[in-house]
Structures are given as C-alpha cells and as structure tokens.
C-alpha cells in the first residue's frame, strides 16, 4: 500500500452545547453552522471519489435521545472496499441543549465502519 495512505485512523469528537442567550431557532442555526466544520473534504481526486451523504433521524434505543445523523462516504479508487467515512450525530430532544458527536474513520471497510458507527450511536445518552 502507498506510504501516502493512512488506514485505520479513527477520530471521535464530542461537543456539548447549551444555549445561554440564544432561543431555540438561534440555537438550531448555531448547530447547523458548527456541523459544517466536520468531516473530510468531498472533492473528487486521483485517489478518492467524491463524497456521498445521507441524513436521517435515528432512535438508537429506548430511553436514549433521538438523533439527527449524517453518514458520508468516499471510496478509494485504487483499493476496493476501502472508504473514508464521517458520521455526525446530534441529539434532538432538547431545544437549547445538545450533544454533537462526530466519528471520522480513514481507510476502513464498510463492515467495520458500520460496526463502529453502530456502537458510536448507541452510546450517546444524557447522564442519568
């Protein structure tokens, strides 16, 4: 494999955000803007395809907050079955308080990305 390609790198970030002065709409706008700063550049290149994304609301398990989740993938052109994946999740049960979590995985298989992504989403909860 090329020494220019790093595989298996995983990065997780969590941001807890609580509005002090912003109302619910302003807080949602702030979250929208913050979510743009994550993930890989989606531009097509010699090594990678363009990025494709899908959004949905996800209910991990009962008793845990519903999430707004975005899953983005890019494939390596030279290595079949290898991808860069970004998963962004945002809690969707409170108007002025949220946890934004991102999981970025570099050079992973789809199966591994799904397995880790599942654990990642299912682990998001408010402290009891």
């Amino acid at each position, binding site marked *: 494999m090329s020494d*220019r390609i790093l595989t298996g790198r995983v990065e997780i970030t969590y941001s807890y955000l609580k509005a002090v002065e912003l109302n619910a709409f302003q807080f949602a706008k702030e*979250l929208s803007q913050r979510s743009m700063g994550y993930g*890989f550049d989606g531009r097509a290149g010699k090594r990678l395809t*363009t990025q494709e994304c*899908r959004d*949905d*609301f*996800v209910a991990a398990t009962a008793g845990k907050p519903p999430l707004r989740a975005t899953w983005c993938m890019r*494939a390596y052109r030279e290595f079949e079955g290898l991808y860069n994946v970004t998963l962004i999740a945002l809690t969707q049960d409170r108007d002025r308080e949220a946890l934004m979590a991102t999981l970025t995985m570099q*050079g992973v298989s789809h199966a591994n990305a799904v397995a880790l992504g599942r654990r990642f989403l299912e682990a998001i909860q408010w402290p009891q």
Partner: protein
Amino acid sequence: MAAVMWIEVLARDGDVATRNRIDTAEARVGRAFDNDVVVNDPHVAPHHIRVSRGEDGELVAEDLGSLNGLYAEHGAERVARLSLRNSPGLRIGRTVLRVHDGAHAVAPEKLLTPPKAHLRWDMVLGAALLALILLLNWLNLTTEPNANAILLPIIGLATLLAVWTGLWAVLSRVFFGQAQFALNLRIAITACIAIVLWDLVAETIAYAFAWRGLGEYASLGAWVILAATCYAHLAAIGPRHMKVALGLVFALIASGTAMHVVSKEESREQIGQRATLGTLRPPAFRLVTPASVDDFFRDTDATRASVDQARTKEPPSGSGLPEMD
C-alpha cells in the same frame, strides 16, 4: 332601419385604430375617400370590399375585384366571399378589419383598481417584507447584533427592487402607455415575499423529513416564482401579449431548471456532498418517526454502492494535486 354594424380597423400592434359605425345595410371599404370606411394602406384597392348582411342577417364580406384580394384574419387562402358569422376578422392588403353586429356581446366590465390602491398595497407589502427579513435575521442571529449586517442586505434588496420595478415600468410605459410603477412594485415585493417564504418553508420541510435533496434543489422553486413574477408583470402591461408572456415564462422555468440541475450534477461529480447536518430547526419541527439504528445502517449500503460506482469512473481533470489520504 337597418341594424347597426361596426367595422374596426386594427393597428399593426393589434389595437383598434378606428371604429366605424355603419347604419346602412351595406358598407364599402377601400382606400378611396368615397368609401364608408377608408383604409390607409397602399396594398388596399380604392374600392376593395363590400360588407353586407345576408338574408338571415349574417354579415358577409365580398371582394370587389381587388388586386390583393380578401382573406380571413388568420387565413392563407384568398376568398371571393367571406362569412363573418363565426369569426369577425378579415384581412385586406396588410390591414386587419373586424366587423361586429350591433348586438355583439362584449366582455363584462373589468374592476378598476381605485387610485392609490396599489400604493397602499406597496406600503403594506413592503412593511411585511421588512418585518419578515428582520424576523429571519433575528431567528438566525447567533452573535452580537451588527447593524451593518442587517441594514446592508435590506438596502441592497431595496435597490434591486427599485431597479427591477423601474425596468418593468419603462417597458409598461413603452407598450401600454402608462408606467404603472406602483403596480409593478407591488408585483416585485410580492415575489420577494414569496421567495423568502419558499426558502424558509423548503428548509423547514427538508429538516422535518430529513430530505437532503429538497435542500439542494430548493432554489428551483425560486425560478418558478421568478417566472410567475415575469408573467404578472407582462399581464400588467397588456393582455394582447399573453402568448408571448406564456412562452417567456416557460422558457425561463425550463432554462433556469436546466442550468440548476446541470450545475448541481457537475458539482456533485466534482465537489461531492458536504459532511454537514444541513439546515437545522428546533427538534419540535421533526415530522418523521426516527429510523432504527438497523434501518439507518442498512441504508448506508446505497451510499456505498454509489461511491463504489464512482470508483469506476475517471477522476475529474484538474485533480493532479497530491492527496494525503
């Protein structure tokens, strides 16, 4: 006494140039001054046609032996005798005439907008647009308020509205004879409100149903609103150009849609989609039941299939820079 008939001579733009009342049983039309209706057209004979009533009262035009002949208004075949029962229009030389019986039914009276009514509407709609913009500014405000950031877009929009309305007012003055600035301004402000509201509604629906595609293609709605706005401006100028107006509207929608779709597809092929949660709203605006984790990850198969397919395509040109991936 014979029933009254009216012979209208149309100008080149389709307007009625002269309207002649005929009280006799028949009327002669031509370039000579002894006719009942005198037509100023070098391609019309001195005594070109006679218009009279048949036995059943039907209006009929007959060619009096002219060089250029008699035609139905939109007809291509020369005729010696033309019944005007179903269509009142006829053509001699380059002139179109319409012959109406005195009992010809006319369209009902159109409601006239009272003076200053458009101006009052302008003020109400302008205040509504300003309130809407200020409200949206406030809802999207995430930092300390900045007067410049709020005022400059409003001044820019007001300038755009003035220029846009001015152009339509000039067109209206040229083709209709009146600038109708207040009416054109009312149309333009209504369009602005529609575009702002459409943007707001489309973003909210895209969030509520998690439809990323709606957010990406929402500006197609703005093209439809723009086309409808041009149609309304043209309708204000005058109804006789409505076929042209409709054609213009469809052309505007089609070209706008085509440009938007092509640029989006090109952008998707070269730049891809951004990893972002999109435009969010407060959680109460969510209208779909959240998917289960199983369903969510099952659907990622489609995303994988899409990027796998993209692997087989040649990378776009101009991507020669080394990548540290």
